[in-house]
């Protein structure tokens, strides 16, 4: 599992607001014209500027010492202040970072003003916290189910839902004079295909769901950078893991009886046998059979059904879910606990051999 730590240099890198000054190769001008070096030839499409070139005045440039352009007015926005308070963010979380989290890449291509770097960091953190939670709490979860469970909590759809539940509204068009408390992104024209290779470039617009999910990721990264590891873990627990999902509803078994036999063979159990426990109304229009699958004397699972076959399959599914959804009795220590306090006591998580190969 990957550990992410935040050093001050990383913090500077993600939050650096000043434009990066790229050293331009020196151009010597002769009577024939500029002598292009091999490096400058690659850049020859850019217009050649003199050494004493002055930057054009940009009304949306930030004032010295301010991370965002003045025109976006992050400090004058009532919506932004209300959002900050609604999320109970610490006063050390600046309003400017929250304003930047609301600016999508499609609204402002300059990466020092948009949320792309914050969203990238936030996505890594959300994936890390989500993965460690499920891998430690349900160590036997099959890979596909683990992925599905993670997507149900930290995928784009739940993240966009979280953003909407925070009361974030979207700007109609991402002009710089809109309220800084609105989500700013370029909308796609109606009827655009957003999946597969037909998906248009990001600069042409993004779906609302994607922009909203990126805002939530960027907000999460801001908590990590400004408030620290402990606060970001708590923020994750409060806003993401507090949501409701039954993991047992995610399984889709294709051949449960066969899978159960393979599991018993692998684990060295006695091969499973289905036995009828109880029945009623066999000759009526609504019979009920209760079937249990037994490995020796041990009942692995039970199921009911209108036919014995149905009940047997349900029993096998029940037994497999009992195996795959094993969870340690005591609350497990998550690896990110050590990020908060490296001296804390830590009990390693159980690692399972993996799902049954049928």
């Amino acid at each position: 599992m990957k550990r992410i730590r935040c050093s001050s240099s990383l913090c500077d890198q993600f939050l650096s607001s000043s434009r990066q000054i790229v050293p331009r190769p020196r151009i010597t001008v002769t009577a024939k014209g500029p002598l292009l070096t091999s490096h400058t030839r690659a850049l020859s499409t850019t217009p050649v500027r003199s050494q004493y070139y002055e930057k054009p005045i940009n009304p949306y440039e930030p004032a010295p010492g301010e991370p965002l352009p003045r025109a976006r007015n992050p400090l004058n926005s009532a919506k932004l202040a209300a959002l900050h308070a609604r999320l109970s963010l610490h006063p050390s979380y600046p309003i400017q970072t929250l304003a930047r989290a609301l600016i999508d890449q499609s609204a402002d291509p300059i990466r020092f003003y948009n949320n792309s770097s914050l969203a990238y960091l936030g996505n890594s953190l959300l994936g890390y916290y989500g993965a460690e939670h499920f891998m430690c709490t349900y160590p036997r979860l099959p890979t596909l189910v683990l992925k599905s469970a993670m997507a149900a909590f930290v995928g784009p759809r739940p993240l966009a839902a979280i953003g909407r539940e925070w009361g974030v509204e979207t700007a109609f068009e991402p002009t710089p004079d809109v309220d800084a408390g609105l989500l700013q992104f370029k909308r796609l024209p109606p009827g655009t295909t957003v999946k597969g290779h037909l998906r248009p470039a990001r600069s042409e617009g993004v779906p609302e769901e994607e922009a909203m999910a990126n805002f939530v990721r960027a907000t999460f990264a801001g908590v990590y950078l400004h408030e620290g590891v402990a606060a970001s873990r708590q923020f994750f627990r409060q806003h993401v893991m507090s949501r409701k999902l039954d993991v047992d509803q995610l399984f889709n078994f294709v051949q449960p009886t066969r899978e159960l036999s393979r599991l018993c063979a692998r684990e060295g159990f006695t091969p499973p046998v289905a036995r009828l426990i109880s029945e009623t109304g066999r000759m009526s229009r609504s019979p009920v059979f209760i079937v249990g699958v037994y490995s020796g004397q041990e009942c692995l699972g039970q199921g009911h059904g209108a036919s014995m076959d149905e009940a047997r399959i349900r029993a096998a599914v029940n037994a497999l879910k009992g195996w795959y959804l094993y969870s340690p009795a005591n609350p497990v220590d998550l690896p990110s606990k050590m990020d908060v306090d490296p001296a804390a006591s830590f009990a390693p998580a159980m690692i399972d051999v993996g799902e049954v190969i049928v």
Partner: protein
Amino acid sequence: MPVTALRAVSKAQNGVGAFVLQCKRLDFHYCDWAGASRGMKSFIAHKLADFAKANPQIEITVSPRPNQHPIIRGSYINGREKVICVRKLDHLQILQKAELLRNSSGQKLKKFSKPVKSMNEGVRGIFSPYHGEKHVI
């Protein structure tokens, strides 16, 4: 073929982890001329600043609405709005109305007939007549 997975999205449970106040915006409208707005103007002058300070998570706007009754309009996270006419009310009554809008969830009012509503399944499980001691007639 081994087990495959179904797609699902987790459901929000506001207040289980973090609590997000559902009222996101309150608009106060008054009329400068009409006497029905006297209480509202007094409320805006003397009480609104404290109310806004006590509720930083709500965006508050004040705007004139000439020749109309004074109203408070609450906007909620679920997209609905609630409007209360505060004509001829004094500033304390208006404060009560503002608090009513703040505490509201934005849902339509409905009657709850069951004491508990939950997404979790019952801890006792469902009764099965086929298990346990069989009843002998």
